[in-house]
C-alpha cells in the first residue's frame, strides 16, 4: 500500500497514513480532534477543512456550497487522501479539548462550584455531610512490631494485626504482587509503612503498602462522564474538601453526538477500542492537569468514583454496549464491581481503585442514581422529581418508599448539537435572549461576555419562549411568514429568524434559528415533558403533589425556569418548587468518594428504582404527540402560559 504524508495546519502536525484514509481518521491519529457529531457519516457538516495542496477523492455533499467548494473546503470525513496533502483546519471545525477556563467553569458549574455553597447552606441535606465520613480508600501509617524468636508471626499477619489494632477490624491483604514485595519492603523501611485500605467489600482490604508515612496525602477524583461533557473534581479525602473542579468535552463526540450513534460506532472495526481510548484519554488528561495545578503526587491518588450513563460506563470499561440497543435493551452490567484503575487504563496510583456508581437500567445510568442520592430523594417522605436534562433526558420520581425513573431520548438539541447555529455551553454561546415585542430587536447575553459564536441550550429555550411570546412562532413552532421584519426571512431550508447579524457575531455568518431547528427543539422538549408526564401518570399522582423538582444537568445551571415552562419543557407548577442542583451526578460521585455509606446507599437506590421503558409504553406515543405543540395540546396543563396573541 502507498503511504501519504498529511500536514495539518496551523497545528503543523504531520501524519503518515495509508492512501485512501479519510482526513478525519488522519487527523484523529495525530491527535487532532474534529467536530463530527454524526460520527463521520457526512451528514452533520461540522468537519469542514480547507485543502491547500494534494490530490483527494471526495464524496459530494449537500453540506458544502459551491462557493465553499471553490475555496477548497471539504468535509474531512468524506475526503480520502490520495497523495501527500496540506490541510488547514479552521477553528469552527475543531472539537475544543482544552479544559474550560475558570470563568467559564464558574458559569457552567455553578451547581458544583460556585453556587454549591448556596445549596449547602440553604439545604444542608444536599451537602456531603449527610453521610458519615468514611472515604472509599483511607490510609494509615503503621509502625509494625519487628519479629523476634518470641513472636514469629508472618509478615502479612503482622501488618494485619497492626492495622486491626488501629481500626478495630480484621483486614485482609490483597494482591500477590503486594505480598511478594512485602518481606523486603518491611525490612528496608524499618517496619514503618503506610497502608491504603479500601472499604467496599465485607472486610477492609489492604490494597497497597508503601514505605514511610504518607498517610496525610490521600486524594481521590469524582468524575461525571456525560455524553457531551466530562466533569471532574479533585477531593482531599483526609480533609474532606474539594480542591478543584474542571470540565471538558467528551472526545467521543468525534464518533457521534448521542449514545445510540456511539453504540453503533462501537460495533465498527476497532470502534469500541477508539471510543474507550477517547474517554480514557480525557480522564487521564484531566487528572494530569489537576496533579500539576495542585502539585500532588499521582501516587497519592488511590481512588476514583465515576458516575455516568450506562453506555458511557460501558465504553469507559471497554464493555461492548451493543445489547443496550437491541431488544429487550439489556446492559452487560449495571452494578459493576470495583476495578483497579490501571486495568481500565486510568493513570493514578497503579493500585488505585475505580468505583462506578451503579446504574438502574440500560438507559437510566449511575448518573441518575448519584443524582437521586445527592438530592436526598431516597430519604424524603415527600414526593420529589429529578429531571436531568442532557443528551438523554433522565427523570426520576419518588420518595423514601418508592422510586421510578425513565429515560427520554431528547437528543442533543439542548446541548446545542444538530442545530444550524447550535453550540455547547461554552465561551461565546448565547445563553439568554430578550426580544422587543414589536420591533423584534434582540438583546442577548453570552457565556464569558464574548462576541456571539452560536446558541447553547439555555439560549434556545429563552429564544423559543421569546419568539412564542412575540408571535413570531405559532403554537406549532413554525415561523409566521407574514411578519414583515428584516429578521424573518426565507433561508436555504425553509424560513429562519436571524438572532444576530454577522457584523455582530464572531463567526462571519448570521446566527439564525430555522424551521428545521425549531422542529428539532420541539421534539426534544416533547420527549422530556412526556417522559415526566408518563411517570406522573403511571404513579397516579398530580403534579401539585410533587414537593420539589430538582433540575440537573450541565446546561441546567443557567436555565431559565419560566422560559422552560413557557415552551412546555417543564410542568407549569409553582416556580418555588424548582431547585437547581447543577451537576447532581458529580455531587453524588463525590459523596460516594467520601463516604462508603453513600456508596452503599447508591447500590441500594439503584436496585430499588423501577425503570419505565418508554419505547414499550403504549401511552408514551400519545403523550409525545400531545407534547409536540407549544406549550402543549392540552392547554389545561399550562394554565399560566399565555403568549398574548
Amino acid at each position, binding site marked *: 500500500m502507498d503511504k501519504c504524508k498529511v500536514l495539518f495546519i496551523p497545528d503543523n502536525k504531520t501524519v503518515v497514513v495509508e492512501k485512501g484514509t479519510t482526513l478525519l481518521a488522519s487527523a484523529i491519529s495525530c491527535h487532532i480532534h474534529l467536530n463530527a457529531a454524526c460520527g463521520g457519516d457526512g451528514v452533520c457538516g461540522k468537519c469542514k477543512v480547507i485543502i491547500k495542496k494534494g490530490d483527494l477523492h471526495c464524496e459530494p455533499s449537500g453540506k458544502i456550497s459551491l462557493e465553499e467548494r471553490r475555496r477548497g473546503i471539504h468535509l474531512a470525513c468524506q475526503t480520502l487522501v490520495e497523495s501527500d496533502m496540506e490541510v488547514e483546519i479552521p477553528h469552527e471545525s475543531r472539537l475544543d479539548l482544552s479544559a474550560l477556563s475558570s470563568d467559564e467553569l464558574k458559569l457552567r458549574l455553578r451547581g458544583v462550584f460556585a453556587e454549591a455553597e448556596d445549596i449547602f447552606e440553604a439545604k444542608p441535606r444536599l451537602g456531603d455531610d449527610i453521610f458519615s465520613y468514611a472515604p472509599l480508600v483511607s490510609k494509615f501509617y503503621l509502625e509494625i512490631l519487628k519479629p523476634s524468636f518470641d513472636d514469629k508471626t508472618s509478615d502479612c499477619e503482622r501488618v494485619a494485626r497492626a492495622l486491626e489494632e488501629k481500626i478495630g477490624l480484621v483486614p485482609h491483604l490483597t494482591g500477590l504482587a503486594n505480598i511478594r514485595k512485602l518481606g523486603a519492603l518491611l525490612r528496608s523501611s524499618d517496619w514503618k509503612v503506610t497502608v491504603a485500605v479500601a472499604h467496599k467489600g465485607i472486610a477492609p482490604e489492604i490494597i497497597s503498602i508503601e514505605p514511610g508515612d504518607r498517610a496525610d496525602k490521600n486524594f481521590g477524583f469524582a468524575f461525571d462522564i456525560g455524553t457531551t461533557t466530562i466533569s471532574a473534581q479533585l477531593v482531599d479525602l483526609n480533609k474532606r474538601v474539594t480542591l478543584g473542579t474542571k470540565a471538558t468535552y467528551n472526545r467521543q463526540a468525534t464518533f457521534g453526538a448521542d449514545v445510540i450513534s456511539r453504540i453503533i460506532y462501537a460495533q465498527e472495526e476497532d470502534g469500541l477500542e477508539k471510543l474507550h481510548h477517547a474517554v480514557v484519554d480525557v480522564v487521564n488528561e484531566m487528572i494530569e492537569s489537576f496533579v500539576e495545578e495542585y502539585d500532588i503526587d499521582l501516587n497519592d491518588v488511590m481512588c476514583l468514583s465515576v458516575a455516568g450513563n450506562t453506555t458511557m460506563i460501558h465504553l469507559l470499561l471497554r464493555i461492548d454496549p451493543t445489547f443496550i440497543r437491541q431488544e429487550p435493551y439489556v446492559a452487560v452490567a449495571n452494578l459493576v464491581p470495583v476495578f483497579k484503575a490501571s486495568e481500565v487504563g486510568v493513570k493514578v496510583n497503579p493500585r488505585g481503585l475505580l468505583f462506578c456508581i451503579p446504574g438502574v437500567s440500560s438507559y437510566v445510568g449511575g448518573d441518575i442514581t448519584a443524582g437521586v442520592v445527592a438530592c436526598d430523594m431516597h430519604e424524603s417522605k415527600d414526593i420529589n422529581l429529578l429531571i436531568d436534562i442532557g443528551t438523554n433526558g433522565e427523570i426520576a420520581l419518588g420518595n423514601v418508599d418508592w422510586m421510578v425513573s425513565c429515560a427520554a431520548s431528547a437528543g442533543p438539541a439542548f446541548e446545542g448539537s444538530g442545530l444550524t447555529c447550535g453550540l455547547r455551553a461554552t465561551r461565546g454561546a448565547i445563553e439568554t435572549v430578550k426580544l422587543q415585542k414589536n420591533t423584534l430587536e434582540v438583546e442577548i447575553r453570552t457565556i464569558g461576555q464574548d462576541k456571539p459564536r452560536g446558541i447553547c441550550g439555555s439560549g434556545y429555550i429563552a429564544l423559543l419562549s421569546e419568539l412564542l411570546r412575540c408571535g413570531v412562532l*405559532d403554537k*406549532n413552532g413554525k415561523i409566521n411568514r407574514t411578519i414583515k421584519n428584516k429578521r424573518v426571512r426565507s433561508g436555504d431550508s425553509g424560513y429562519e429568524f436571524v438572532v444576530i447579524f454577522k457584523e455582530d457575531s464572531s463567526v462571519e455568518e448570521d446566527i439564525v434559528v430555522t424551521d428545521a431547528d425549531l422542529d428539532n427543539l420541539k421534539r426534544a422538549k416533547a420527549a422530556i415533558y412526556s417522559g415526566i408526564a408518563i411517570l406522573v401518570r403511571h404513579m397516579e399522582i398530580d403534579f401539585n403533589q410533587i414537593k420539589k423538582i430538582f433540575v440537573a444537568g450541565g446546561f441546567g445551571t443557567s436555565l431559565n425556569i419560566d422560559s422552560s415552562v413557557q415552551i412546555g419543557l417543564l410542568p407549569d407548577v409553582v416556580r418555588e418548587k424548582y431547585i437547581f442542583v447543577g451537576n447532581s451526578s458529580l455531587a453524588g460521585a463525590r459523596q460516594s468518594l467520601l463516604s462508603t455509606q453513600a456508596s452503599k446507599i447508591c447500590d441500594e437506590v439503584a436496585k430499588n428504582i423501577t425503570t419505565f421503558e418508554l419505547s414499550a409504553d403504549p401511552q408514551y406515543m*400519545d403523550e409525545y404527540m400531545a407534547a*409536540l*405543540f407549544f406549550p402543549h*395540546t392540552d*392547554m389545561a396543563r399550562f394554565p399560566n402560559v399565555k403568549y398574548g396573541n
Partner: protein
Amino acid sequence: MAEELKVLDRACLKIYELTMGACAASGGSRKKILKVGGQSAMPFLFEEGEIPHAPLIAAEVSDIVEDDCPFVLKNALKGLTDKPVDWAVEMMGEAGADLICLKLQGTHPDFGNKTSKEAVELVEGLLKKVETPLIVLGSGQADKDNDVLSAVSEATKGERLLFGDVVQENYKTLTAACIADGHNIIAESPIDVNIAKQLNILISDIGLPLDRIVINPTIGALGYGLEYAYSIMERARNAALAGDKMLAMPFICFVGQEAWRAKEAKVSESEWPGSGNADTRGIMWEVVTALAMLQAGADILTMRHPQAIRIVKKAIEDLMKR
C-alpha cells in the same frame, strides 16, 4: 330477573352547531340552510342527550374525472362526469344528496392546471343551479389551493360555504380568507386526535370562531383502516363531550373517495374471479363504510354512487327515528 340497568352518560359540552349557507337576509343567496353538530350525546343515543340534526350526505362532484375512475361509477354517472353542474343537479335530485361537495381537482398543476378564474366561474355557475350551500375542496397542491380557494372564497363572500382542507403545514392563507369572507373550514389531520386538536387551536388562534370548523379526521374504507379511524373519532368525540372544546366540532368523512379506492370496489369480476357481482360490490363497499362512519359520529358523509347515497340516506332516516 334484576331490573334492567340503564347507564346514561351526561355530556358536559355540546358539539358546536355549524351553519352552512346564508340566505339573502344574511348576506348570501342560499334558499336552503343546513346545520350540523349541536349534539350532546354519542351517535344515535337519544336517551343520553340531544341530537338536533341528522347527518348529511354530500355528493362528491369533481371538475375533472380521472381516467382510472371505477367502471361501476362511470356507468352510474354516464354523461355527467364532464359536466359538473349537471352532475351536481342530478345528485341533488334523483339521488337525494343533501348538498354537493365540489372538488376542484382540475386546478392541480398536474391534472389540467385550471386557473382560479375558471374555478370561480364553475362555483358561481353551480351556486345558481342549486339552492343549498356547497362544500368546496382544493386539489391538494398547497400553493395552488391557496390561490384558487382564496379566489373562490372572495367571489362567494357571505354565502357561508364550507372550504377545505387546511392542514397543519398550510392553514393560514385559507383560514384568513374564510374569516374575511364569512365561510366555514375543514381542518384535516392524519388520523391523530392530538394533531386534530392542535390544528383547531392554530386556526382559532388566527381568529376563526370554533363553530365554523369541521374536523376531517381522515378515514380508511372498509378493510383499509376503518376501525382505526373509528377509534380516533370515538376518542375525539368522547373528549369533546367530556368538555374539550377544541375537539367539539362536527366530523366530515370522505367516504366516497376512500371506498372507491379499494380494490374490492374497483376490480371487475373477470379480473378477480369469485369476488362477487362487481356492480353491487363497489356500492356495498361505499355503503358499509358510510354506515360505520355514522356510528363513529360522522356529521357529514361525502359519497359518490347515487345508489349508495339512496341506501345510506334511508338508513339515516331509520336511525334518526327515536
